[in-house]
């Protein structure tokens, strides 16, 4: 990457790094608590809504057949997508040996895990009989029945399950040396806690040698995984025959979108977080500049995908496709269609300018646009495609209700709650990887 050229030399010493990161785990500011309580509150709203859904049924949500999927699946895809940036940065950029990832990858990886945890809730929330969701798992039962592995939904179960497991493992493995470092800095019960979590890590040559290898293989496994997961999610749609869904470009299109949205979320989280945790000197403009470039890249891929969707819709000569895309742009839900194109395709193009890439306020605003836009992308794909497919007589426009928004809000609460707790409890910046980049001091003149 060209980034390496003007990569700012890290001026700190190992000791300073440890000190600054451990400092992030000290008693947090009031702002932190406000944020945390807000998150918990939002989560409780979602919980309440879910209880009502269990009691009365999914009818509370704004489904209008033929739109049988709506906000819940939209949000599911949204959160799965968020996850991808984390794995991309932590695994793929690791393989690429791209130096700028080190400062940010821990936070993004945590984001991945919690985003996938959030996403994992939605298939359960959205099904009609939530209490038997486990029928989707292949377990021996007295009925002798197995799930249908031809169903993309079962693929989902496996993909999301694998993704959650692997990314969690990846996060934990990465954490171990850092926890050890913290262990050796703190005292009292916290020392005991971190000691337990550090699994007796000492940083001996023997540990490092298996660790580095293992970490490498995990990254190598996570890389195809991250590409596959959102492909599988995209096949939830692409495997169907619904006009606007069964597109061959869906897999790459979704993966790009996922990373795009993920980085959007990274920006949204990191920009305030670095201030709250006082790590501005570690997570610098340089990092955001690179994140922004990645955003620009994926955003442009999306732009292309959108264009292709419309082109193929028209070029297919298939009346169903044509109607769908005509109505996506000019139908009753045109606003959603355009929200997606403007927020994703157009706004991302602003990042051609370095001024904007390095202006954090601008980046933050853009990242908000990205989050909204990407949510709408999924909403449009699901709601508008379903609302007008084959049988005109059966067409119908869905309009989300409080039950939809309640769950959506709750999902954000759930996610932020975990993320904030994590940021308080574990090093949000990867100590050992930063140190790996700082050469040990030398006696005979530096290198």
């Amino acid at each position: 990457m060209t980034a390496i050229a003007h990569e700012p030399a890290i001026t700190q010493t190992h000791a300073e790094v440890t000190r600054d990161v451990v400092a992030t785990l000290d008693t947090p500011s009031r702002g932190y608590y406000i944020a945390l309580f807000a998150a918990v509150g939002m989560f409780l709203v979602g919980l309440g809504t879910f209880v009502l859904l269990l009691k009365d049924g999914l009818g509370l949500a704004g489904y209008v057949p033929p739109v049988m999927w709506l906000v819940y699946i939209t949000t599911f895809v949204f959160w799965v997508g968020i996850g991808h940036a984390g794995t991309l940065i932590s695994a793929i950029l690791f393989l690429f040996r791209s130096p700028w990832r080190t400062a940010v990858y821990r936070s993004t990886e945590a984001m991945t895990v919690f985003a996938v945890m959030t996403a994992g809730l939605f298939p359960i929330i959205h099904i009609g009989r939530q209490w038997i969701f486990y029928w989707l798992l292949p377990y021996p039962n007295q009925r002798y029945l197995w799930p249908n592995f031809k169903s993309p939904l079962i693929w989902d179960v496996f993909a999301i399950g694998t993704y959650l497991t692997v990314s969690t493992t990846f996060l934990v493995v990465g954490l171990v040396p850092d926890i050890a470092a913290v262990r050796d800095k703190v005292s009292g019960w916290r020392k005991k806690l971190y000691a337990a979590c550090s699994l007796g890590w000492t940083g001996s040559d023997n540990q490092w040698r298996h660790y580095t290898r293992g970490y490498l293989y995990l990254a190598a496994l996570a890389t195809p995984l991250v590409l596959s997961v959102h492909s599988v999610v995209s096949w939830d749609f692409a495997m169907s025959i619904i006009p606007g869904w069964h597109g061959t470009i869906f897999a790459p299109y979704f993966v790009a979108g996922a990373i795009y949205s993920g980085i959007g979320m990274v920006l949204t989280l990191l920009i305030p977080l670095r201030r709250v945790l006082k790590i501005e000197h570690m997570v610098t403009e340089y990092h955001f500049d690179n994140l922004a470039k990645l955003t620009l890249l994926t955003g442009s891929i999306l732009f292309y995908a959108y264009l292709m969707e419309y082109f193929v819709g028209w070029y297919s000569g298939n009346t169903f496709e044509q109607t769908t895309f005509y109505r996506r742009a000019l139908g009753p839900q045109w606003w959603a269609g355009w929200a997606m194109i403007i927020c994703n395709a157009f706004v991302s193009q602003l990042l051609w300018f370095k001024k904007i890439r390095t202006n954090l306020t601008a980046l933050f605003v853009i990242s908000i646009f990205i989050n909204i836009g990407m949510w709408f992308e999924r909403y449009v794909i699901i709601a508008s495609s379903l609302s007008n497919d084959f049988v005109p007589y059966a067409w119908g426009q869905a309009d989300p209700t409080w039950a939809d928004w309640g769950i959506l809000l709750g999902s954000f609460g759930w996610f932020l709650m975990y993320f904030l707790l994590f940021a308080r409890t574990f090093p949000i910046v990867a100590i050992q990887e930063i140190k790996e980049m700082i050469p040990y001091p030398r006696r005979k003149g530096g290198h």
Partner: protein
Amino acid sequence: MAASSGVLASFEHIDSAVEAIHRLRARGFTDLTVYSAAPNHELEEALRHPVSGVRLFTLIGGITGCIAGYAMTTWMSYDWPLLVGGKPIASIPPYVVIMFELTILLGALSTVAGMIILSVRRSLRGRPFHPRFSDDRVGIFAPCGPEQVDALSGLFRTAGAVEVTREG
């Protein structure tokens, strides 16, 4: 001789640590334990370790997952044959997804298992350690009998250790 008895030296400068390792190996001390806060190439080269065996775990785990994925899907399809969408009872293309996911899953899990199993070596248990090793110092522990302690301490000092202690 007990694995935990020997000399523990800590270094500020990487080159001194490397030099110490070279000298120790020259003296025939190969069973060293070198602590560092981050992996370091110079140290690795100096220690001349063989490649870690983790990859074998990864490979076997992955293959197992792939086979399990194929076997499970196909067998379950035939165990209670149900026709859907005019497709074959067991059709491979959709099952590839399951096979892939299980490959990754078992691959990753067995990798971690491998890391843990391999890192935990009985012979290294209870070797002395100093908190600063996880911060900014490089530590080298060379196990040896009482008779060699002074010699080793000297070696470390001359190599540029900032601190040398006798253990056990």
